[in-house]
């Protein structure tokens, strides 16, 4: 009964949160009509791209050495969060760093969006209502982990990822979508990144091993991801639209396994053209999801709020966004990773994240040049501050420059640069102070921290995108 009550509270709180929030839509996708016949319209869209991507700088750092040695010359050492794990924190490479801990590697890989082959169909079902289905298949140019045996159809690489598969009804009352569809929270920051920076570029590779890349996601922008859900968007009323969605609940596996209630997300967006040369869009977003321990009534919740805006004045584009939330993760909202929660010894408490992101672009004919700066901050929990065995993520910072040239309306060339810096908090200073009755060393905390670890790495990417 307690669970049910808390579930009801959760839903109510989620609704209240959503009622107070605002969001943006995914940038419109161009489509090529293949056929119109007997009231059916079939269309396709997609893209193929490839980039040469050079990374150079620090490899994933080793934990700093604790020099607070005891009489035996021993000191408690720690682990560095994210070590050995892709897509958690920092830029981890399993085998590409040299003896000096430096990374220098070149890959040929996909960009911010992978290669996409999408099909859709539309049909007018009443005088005012149209139904539309859309399925997009995503792939990457690169093999998983540079291993060509992975090209043999293993699920880690060459199977198509059905990133989108939804239907939608459009009418004068708004739009209702259902299926595997984009999330809402994080939409504004991703939209800014897509439109003003990395739509035809690469930015930060999320992982060394494979996957479409991150652009500024993970360094201030947060991806809404895709999830099964139902999404309703009101019609445009003087530039104002409300979008609400109910999504399949996500587990934080290994920590918070029970996710019994769908996750509400929502956004409120306002856009206005002040003159032929000046246009702006503002939006705020929210997300809430209750979580429980398996076989227990112990509960917590993931929540997030985000806001941002885009301004276009003549050839100048400016985008600003920010988010704050608990249990969100570094890259994608509700990311199941070790950065999102503490260890089992400390109750797997959810960490809080803050993101700030600014992006500018200048458009001149076929040229677009962009500059971006963003930071993701991962707050320390109280338990992290006394955990001498681990140094956790403090922040990820990204600076970017993108130069695009549209050779035609379907072919875009790119050169872009991304500077990625990761900072860890540093493990609390500690030293051994004798041993207990069982001979287990007693660790005494000292003021300050062991030298915080840091990673600085740069990427230069050159490529082309053909899209339709």
């Amino acid at each position: 009964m307690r669970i049910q009550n808390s579930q009801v509270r959760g839903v109510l709180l989620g609704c209240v949160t959503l009622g107070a929030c605002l969001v943006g839509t995914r940038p419109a996708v161009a489509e090529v009509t293949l056929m119109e016949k007997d009231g059916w319209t079939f269309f396709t869209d997609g893209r193929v791209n490839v980039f040469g991507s050079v990374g150079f700088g620090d490899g994933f750092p080793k934990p700093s050495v604790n020099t607070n040695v005891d009489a035996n010359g021993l000191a408690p050492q720690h682990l560095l969060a994210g070590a050995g794990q892709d897509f958690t924190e920092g830029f981890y490479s399993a085998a590409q760093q040299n003896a000096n801990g430096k990374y220098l590697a070149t890959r040929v890989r996909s960009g911010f969006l992978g290669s996409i082959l999408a099909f859709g169909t539309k049909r007018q079902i009443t005088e005012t209502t149209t139904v539309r289905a859309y399925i997009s298949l995503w792939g990457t140019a690169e093999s998983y982990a540079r291993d060509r045996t992975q090209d043999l159809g293993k699920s880690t690489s060459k199977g198509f990822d059905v990133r989108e598969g939804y239907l939608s009804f459009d009418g004068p009352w708004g739009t209702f979508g259902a299926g595997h569809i984009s999330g809402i929270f994080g939409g504004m920051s991703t939209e800014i990144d897509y439109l003003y920076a990395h739509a035809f570029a690469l930015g930060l590779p999320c992982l060394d091993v494979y996957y479409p890349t991150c652009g500024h996601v993970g360094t201030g922008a947060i991806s809404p991801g895709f999830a099964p859900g139902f999404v309703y968007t009101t019609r445009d009323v003087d530039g104002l639209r409300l979008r609400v969605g109910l999504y399949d609940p996500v587990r934080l596996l290994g920590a918070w396994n029970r996710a019994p209630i769908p996750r509400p997300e929502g956004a409120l967006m306002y856009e206005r053209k002040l003159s032929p040369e000046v246009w702006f869009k503002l939006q705020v977003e929210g997300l809430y999801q209750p979580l429980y321990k398996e076989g227990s009534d112990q509960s917590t919740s993931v929540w997030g709020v985000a806001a941002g805006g885009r301004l276009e004045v003549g050839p100048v584009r400016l985008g600003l966004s920010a988010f704050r939330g608990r249990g969100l993760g570094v890259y994608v909202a509700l990311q199941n990773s070790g950065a999102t929660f503490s260890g089992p010894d400390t109750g797997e408490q959810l960490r809080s994240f803050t993101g700030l992101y600014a992006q500018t672009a200048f458009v001149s004919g076929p040229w677009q040049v962009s500059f971006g700066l963003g930071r993701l901050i991962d707050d320390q929990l109280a338990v992290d501050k006394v955990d001498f065995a681990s140094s956790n993520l403090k922040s990820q910072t990204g600076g970017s420059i993108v130069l695009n040239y549209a050779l035609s309306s379907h072919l875009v060339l790119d050169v872009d640069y991304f500077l990625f810096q990761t900072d860890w908090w540093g493990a609390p200073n500690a030293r051994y102070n004798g041993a207990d009755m069982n001979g287990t060393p007693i660790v005494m905390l000292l003021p300050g921290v062991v030298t915080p670890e840091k990673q600085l790495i740069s990427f230069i990417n050159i490529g082309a995108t053909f899209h339709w």
Partner: protein
Amino acid sequence: MKTLNKLRWSGACLGLCLASVLFWSRSAAAEVKLVETDGWTFSINGRVNAFLSGGRGDDFPHPTPGQTHLVMGADGRAANGVPDVGWPSSGQEDMNNKYAAIRVRSGVLPNVLGFGLANQVSDTLVVKAYVELWSTIETLGRDKWAPIIAEARVGYFTASGPWGTATAGRMLGWLGRMSYDIDLAYGHGYGVGLPCTDSLGPACGHIGTGALFPGYSAGIAYSTPVFQGVQLNVGMYDPAVVSGTGDPGDWTHAPYPRGEGALTVTRPFGASNSFKLGVEGLYQPIARVVTTTDPTTMAMTSKNATANIWGVSGGGRVEVGPVRLGASGFRGHGTGIGNVLQTSFSLSDNDGAATGPNGLTYALRTFTGFYGQGAVVIGKLQIGGGYGMAMIDQLAADKVNSNLSVLHTQTGISAEVYYYLADSVVFGLDYFHFKASWYGAPILDANNQATGTKLAGELQNLDFVNLGVTYHW
């Protein structure tokens, strides 16, 4: 050599079996012709759907207290997202082992993208290739970051002429097709019914509770022309290995293709009524290597052992005015309770985690199912209801195995309401009650002899309500 002869004899039996079974082809999928040029026709069909699916009731039962034993189908025995017996959630049980959760998931048929390319080779010969990509909308285990890998569920080509149709490639099997056909047409074609697993779809409808899913496999098949509504279908399929345990002594050998077939009769009667009857059959020989160690010399000897998987099924459906009725049944040895020839610890006595007092016997279990489904179509509304039950016969070894409680029955009761908003859009609301019961673990005496008594059988009751929409073309 003896084994080989046995298998050859089995292969001969196969032909006879196929000649004596009955079948019809899958209901033709609607398709839209995109391009017709120079004798070529390119067509497309498919669907997209999403359902809000709420479940409430018992999570997978704990063993009845009294002695340590395994409940067949217990969580973790099957791979994540693979249906087995009972219904284990993906770690969603509360402190009282109750399940209450709402998901957004795909229906019995998930998102499907199908492409066809046909060529009129001559006046009497048409060759057509057809490929379907299937994908769910939910990711495995509620992990938002996990990819949804498209599955090429169907990929075959056909050659059709006045002599019939030959099909080669990956296609739907025959055994259980009548029950699957009834479930799709009158039950859950636009619904969910029972989610096959908590982790991943597509959903099962009445599959596993009386209906039998034929499954897809590589094969070569032939269908006769339809004569007076009668059609015979026979096929040879890539043999399936059903062990899945990694145990080298298990049924890991499947040397000969599997025969499946069906005979169907489809006839109209009266002004606008029709009926369809079908019987189906399957036969597959399997083998394993039995290794024994001489207790004195410790010398190891190996010999071959063989067995036959077989199944028969059948049913019919009738449409009289607005009323639709369907009934089906199956009986199979080693076939499985819901998905034909899918690896499961229920198929045979092969679970090393629940070995009986005489060791693993690897004996195949026998399965039975029956299913009835009705529907009434009133204008754009279709209202239906179904009932089905599937059961497993206990082996002699099961009756003395105190380490295992074998699944006894799985029962499903369903109700469905569909509203056809347009020819291509269907809203669905359906309810499914799932009940699973286990035999209970036998109680042995101090000498490991069966006492003839057993612990109370475990029980699971779950209810699902599903609400969603499908757009198909």
